[in-house]
C-alpha cells in the first residue's frame, strides 16, 4: 500500500508540469491584456506599453515561461497584478471560504443523495423511487444560479430568515458563519446530491441482485438489515468515488455559488482573474486545483481499501 501511494505521489510531478505549461500557454495566448484593464478606459497605447514593460510582459513568452518554472521551483507563484500581494497569500485567504463551502455543500449532498439512492433502490419501481429520482433529475436540471437567486428571494428578501449574501469566518463568529452558509450550502448541495443519489441507486440495485443478498433474505434477515448492512457496504465504493470527484470539483471553486452569494473563495478569484487576465493568479489557482484533484483521488483510492477489504494495491 505504502509503495503504491509513493508511486502515485511521484506520478503527480509530471501531471503538474503538464498542467502548468498548458495553463501558462493558454492564458498568455488568448487575447486580452491585464494592463489595458488596469489602466482604465482612457489610457493611451503608449501608457499601456510602458506599464507592460514595467511588469515584464513585453518579454518573449519562452523567457516568461522559464522564469515561471524557476519561481514555482522556489515555491513562489508570483505576485498578483491586481491584488498587490503574492499569489500564495491570495490563495490562502480564499482557502477557508472555499473549504467551508465545499464541506458544507458536500455534507448536504451526502445527507440528501445517499439515503435517497438507497431508499429508491430498496423500493425499486415504487412511488418513493419515482419521486426521489424525479428530485434527483430536478437537481441535475435546475441551473445553480436560478436556484440560488430564488433561495435569496424567498429566504432572505421575503421571509427575512437568512442573510442574502456574504461571508463570515467560522473562527471569527461561528453562528454568523452558519447563517451565511446555509443558503449556499443547500443550493449547491442540492445540485450535487443529484449525481450521488443516482449513482447510489444504481450501485444499490446491483448489490441487491447479488447472491449474498438472496442468501441473507433466505436466512430470514430483516430487509432493512439486508439493505443497510449487507448491500450498502458493498455498493459504497463507486459512491465514494463520486463523492471524491464532487469534492475535487468544489475545491476548484463553486464559481456560480460563490459569485451569487458573494463568497470570497477560489471560484470567484479565478473568474475575476481570468476576466482581468491576472496571469499569476490564474496559474496559481489552477495549480492548487490540479493538486487537489490528484490528492483527493489518491485519498479516495486509499479509502477503497478500508471500505472493501478485497481491494489490495500490493
Amino acid at each position, binding site marked *: 500500500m505504502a509503495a503504491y501511494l509513493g508511486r502515485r505521489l511521484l506520478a503527480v510531478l509530471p501531471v503538474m508540469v503538464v498542467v502548468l505549461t498548458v495553463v501558462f500557454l493558454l492564458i498568455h495566448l488568448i487575447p486580452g491584456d*491585464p494592463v489595458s484593464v488596469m*489602466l482604465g478606459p482612457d*489610457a*493611451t497605447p503608449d501608457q499601456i506599453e510602458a506599464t507592460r514593460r514595467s511588469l515584464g510582459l513585453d518579454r518573449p513568452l519562452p523567457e516568461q515561461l522559464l522564469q515561471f518554472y524557476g519561481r514555482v521551483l522556489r515555491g513562489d507563484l508570483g505576485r498578483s497584478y491586481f*491584488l498587490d500581494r503574492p499569489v500564495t497569500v491570495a490563495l490562502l485567504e480564499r482557502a477557508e471560504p472555499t473549504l467551508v463551502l465545499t464541506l458544507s455543500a458536500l455534507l448536504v449532498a451526502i445527507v440528501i443523495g445517499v439515503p435517497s439512492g438507497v431508499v429508491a433502490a430498496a423500493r425499486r419501481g415504487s412511488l418513493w423511487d419515482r419521486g426521489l429520482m424525479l428530485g434527483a433529475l430536478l437537481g441535475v436540471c435546475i441551473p445553480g444560479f436560478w436556484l440560488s437567486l430564488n433561495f*435569496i428571494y424567498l429566504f432572505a428578501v421575503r421571509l427575512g430568515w437568512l442573510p*442574502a*449574501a456574504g461571508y463570515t469566518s467560522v473562527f471569527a463568529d461561528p453562528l454568523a458563519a452558519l447563517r451565511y452558509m446555509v443558503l449556499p450550502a443547500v443550493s449547491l448541495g442540492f445540485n450535487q446530491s443529484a449525481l450521488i443519489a443516482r449513482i447510489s441507486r444504481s450501485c444499490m440495485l446491483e448489490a441487491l441482485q447479488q447472491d449474498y443478498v438472496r442468501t441473507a433474505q433466505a436466512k430470514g434477515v430483516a430487509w432493512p438489515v439486508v439493505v443497510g448492512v449487507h448491500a450498502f457496504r458493498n455498493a459504497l465504493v463507486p459512491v465514494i468515488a463520486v463523492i471524491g470527484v464532487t469534492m475535487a470539483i468544489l475545491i476548484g471553486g463553486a464559481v456560480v455559488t460563490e459569485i451569487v452569494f*458573494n463568497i470570497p473563495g477560489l471560484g470567484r478569484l479565478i473568474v475575476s482573474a481570468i476576466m482581468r487576465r491576472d496571469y499569476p493568479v490564474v496559474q496559481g489557482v489552477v495549480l492548487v486545483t490540479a493538486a487537489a484533484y490528484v490528492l483527493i483521488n489518491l485519498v479516495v483510492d486509499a479509502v477503497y481499501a478500508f471500505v472493501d477489504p478485497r481491494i489490495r494495491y500490493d
Partner: protein
Amino acid sequence: MWAEILLTLAREVEMVRRISVRAAVAAALAVAVMAGAAAAAETPKRGGILRVGNLGEPPALDAHWTTASITETLTNHIYEGLYSLDRDNRPIPMLAESHSVSRDGLTYTFKLRQGIKFHNGKEMTSEDVVASLARWGKQSVYGRTLFDKVADLRARDTYTVELKLKEKVAIVLVSLAVPNNFAAIYPKEIAEKFPPQTKITEYVGTGPYRLAEWKPDQYIRMVRFDDYKPRNEPPNGYGGGKTAYLDEIRWIPVPDVATRVAQVETGELEFADDLNLDAYDRLKRNPGARPIIGKPYYWLVAVLNKKDGLMQDQKLRQAWQAAIDIEPIMRNVAGGKAEFYRMDSSLAFAEVPAWHTSLPGLPWNAHDRDKARRLLREAGYKGEPVRFMTTQEYKWMYDFALLTKQQLEDVGFVIDLQVMDWSTLVQRRNNPKAYDAFTTGMGNFFDPTHHVYLTCVWPGFTCDEDILKLQDELARELDPKKRFALWVRQTRQFYEKVPVIRYGDLFGLRAVLNTVKGFNEKTERVRFYNVWLER
C-alpha cells in the same frame, strides 16, 4: 322664538369660530412640531457604518495611475487635489487657498491651505505638492496633457507652489480639478518612492476618510480621519466643505447585480451602485429604500477606426451617422424606460453647462436612409464586412451594437459583429489593423480639450488636422467666450467629419436605504462625505 333661534345660531357660530381657532392653533402647533421633528430628523448625526455594494475590485488605489471609474470613486474619499469641481463642474479650490496668474499668463502661483494633515500625521507642504504633481504629470492622462506645456514646477516657500508654462494654456485649473485620474496630493516620500508606472501601495492622503483595511474581494474599510480640516464653505458639487459623519465606509464588492439589489432590500447594504435598470420598479415599490437615477452615466458611442481599414473613408462614417435612428436604440437599451435616457447631440453633457451646446441643424439622429445609401454608393462600398467589436460584459454596449447592426444592414452595410470579453476588446482596440469600429461609453469631460476621442493617441485615432488644430486653439485660448465659440465650431466639425458616432445619453441606477441622509444625487460618481445615517 326668532331671538332664540338667532341666539342659538350666534352661539353655534361662536363655537365654530372657537373650534376653528383651536383647530388652527392645534394645526399650527402640529405643523410646528412636525417641522421640528423633520428638522431634527435632518440634523446630521455622527456614527455608523455605511455599507456600499459595488461591482468589483479597483485595479489600484492610486489616483494617478488609472482612469478606472471605481478607482476614481474610492480614491476621492482618501485623497484630495489642489482643486475640485463645483455643482456646475467648474474648478474650485480644495487644498489650494488661492492662486494668481502672472500678467503674461505663463506663471501660476498657488497658495496652499495651512495646517492640512496627511493621514500619517505629517503636515502637507509645497514639497508634497510638487512631488505629487510631478508624478501625476508623468502618468495621468490629464496630467500628461497639462505637463506637455509645463516648463517648471517648484516650491517657492513652505506653502507656495509656482508652475511655469511654456506657453499660455486654458486648462491649468480644470486639469488640476478633474476627479478622474486626478492630481491627488500624496506625501513627498510616497510620491517619490513609487515611480509613475508603478502603482502606489501605501495609501496616505488628506481626505476625510483614511484607508483602514483592504481585503480583496471582501471589503475596503475607510474610517473617519479625525484630524481632517474641512473648508469653511458649504458643500458644493465634488468640493466645498466636507464632513465625515460616518465612522466607517465599507465598500463591499458584490459581483452579481441581482444580489446587490437583494442586499439593499434586506438591509444588508445601505447603498448599491451600478444596478440593472429592470430593478427600478421593484425598488420604487420598496418602502425602506429608493432608486436613484445616476446622471450622467455615459453617452453611447461607436468609435470608428480612422487609421486603417474601411472607416478611413469619411463618406462611410457619414453614411453610418445618417442611417441610424437613435431614439428606438436608446429606448431599448434603457429597457423601455424614458427616465433612463436623454436625446442630446451635445458632446458635453447637460450637467456641464459651460460646454453644453444646443445647435440646430446638426446631422444627428437624421435617420435618412436615402442619404445613407447615396453616401455608400459615393464611397464605392461593395459590401465589405465592417468589423464592429462589442462585449456582453456591459449589456448596454451589446444591446446598442446589435440594434445598430440591424439598422445599418437595412441600408446596405455588412456588419461583422464581433463579441468578445472586455479585456480582449480594450487590447484589440489599440491595434488599428484589428477592427473598424468598437462600442464604448463616454463619461463626463469637464473641458473640451479632455475629450479623448478627439485625439490622435486614443483608440479610433482621430488624427484629422482640422479637428486637432481646433483642439489646440481651445487649449491656448483663455477667453471663455472665445473658447465656447471654438467649441461650437468643433461640434459642427465633429458632425461633418464623424470621428465617432454619438448616440444618446444613458443614465445609471443606484439604490439607497431611506436611513441614508445627505447624499448628493447630482454628482456623476458617488461621494459619501457629508452623508450620515438616521437610525
